[in-house]
């Protein structure tokens, strides 16, 4: 993906302490982080904003230790998901307070798959979406991930369901993609 190649150069510059590189990384990646965090149904807009801020503070602090600049976006999004989850667990009074989820250590971030591999992964995901039976889940996935313009809340309004229904559909689909990706990683290791 051209976008992530461009990112890598800014990650290198940021790790050298260039202030403008941090701005550029923030500008380019904030939309993805906001989309990810905004998809967590029980978080209100203030909490989403706090989680976004905390994500970048943690990532920027640890960035000089990031061994694999090409992994920046995946690493950043992992941090964002952890932060959002931690915030949800703190918020929920019915669940016990769990330990703060640890961020992935920047030193141990593994190499990313080759660009070719990534393109294949994208094809697989598109295929899986195409193969979904026609219905609400497919429509939701299409609106959120393929068109990528409406927020989870807006999709809920459009489809006339609650935001948590949208989030559940997206999470369900995501866990299927995660299984498929894990399988591919494992198959690659075995070969």
């Amino acid at each position, binding site marked *: 993906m051209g976008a992530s190649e461009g990112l890598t150069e800014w990650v290198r510059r940021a790790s050298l302490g260039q202030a403008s590189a941090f701005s550029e990384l923030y500008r380019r990646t904030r939309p993805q982080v906001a989309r990810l965090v905004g998809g967590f149904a029980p978080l209100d*807009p203030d909490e989403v*904003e706090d989680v*976004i801020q905390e994500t970048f503070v943690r990532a920027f602090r640890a960035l000089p230790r990031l061994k694999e600049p090409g992994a920046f976006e*995946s690493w950043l999004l992992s941090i964002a998901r952890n932060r959002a989850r931690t915030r949800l667990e703190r918020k929920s009074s019915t669940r016990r307070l769990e330990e703060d989820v640890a961020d992935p250590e920047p030193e141990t971030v593994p190499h990313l798959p080759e660009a070719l591999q990534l393109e294949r992964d994208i094809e697989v995901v598109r295929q899986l979406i195409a193969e979904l039976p026609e219905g609400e889940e497919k429509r939701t996935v299409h609106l959120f991930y393929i068109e990528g313009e409406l927020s989870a809340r807006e999709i809920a309004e459009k489809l006339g369901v609650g935001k948590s229904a949208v989030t559940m559909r997206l999470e369900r689909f995501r866990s299927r*993609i995660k*299984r498929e990706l*894990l399988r591919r990683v494992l198959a690659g290791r*075995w070969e």
Partner: protein
Amino acid sequence: MRHLDDGALRALTHQDAATVKYFAEHLAHPCDTCEAFLAAHDGPGLLDGQVDSLLLGLAPRASQEAPLDEVGLARVRRAMQPQRPGIRRWGLVAGSIAACLLAVVLLPRMRAAGSGDSTAPWTGQKGGAARIALELSVAARDDGGALRRLDPDSVVTDADVLLLRYHATEAGTALLFEQRAGEPPELLGEFPLVAGTHDLQGPQGLAGVSLAGESGLVTLWLVGSAGGPPPAEAVRELLEGENPTWEHTALAVIRFDVRVRNGQNRP
């Protein structure tokens, strides 16, 4: 049949050959048990980030042209300064406090310093932009929740939170900066202005400026423009200038100084 669990995930992370082989085959087919486990647990490794990066990368990428969220970045920068632990507390003041503030309507008003008769337009705006005049009143809320109005140059303590109320002649946008003696102004936030008298509040609620960790002279700058926000960097340069040229712009600039007495240093 074996499904994913904590033990299996550990074995996969350590690349245990038998486990890898088993799950490479098992996960080739949909499995509700394993998918539920994957949804509720992180990893292995950066898998979650890779999945999200992949999924969020499917939509046309607008991030190359995304505008910089200066307010958000400024908040990140401030939060990254470890030597000022209190600063990141800026932002939210709970609803009960908003109610307290609403009860305080007799705050004195300052004349806007920058609302003179100058006609030169703000260079960042299209010509003929409406002029906006601002007035500002400031109240301090102490750690017991009591509010008191402040005159300019009042002495406050570092346990106080400053709350702002403005009067605007037009709708517009304001930037709020905080400046410590000898340091450049720092952007605290961007706020919509509504014509009339209102509490300063953003999408996150009522704005309160925490003074925790501060001492000495602290200056608040409220910079308003009719319409959209003026570029924060340009405003910062204007505020820092030896001879502030904002008097010749369409901006309304209000300065409010307080002197912070650090509670911990008191005898």
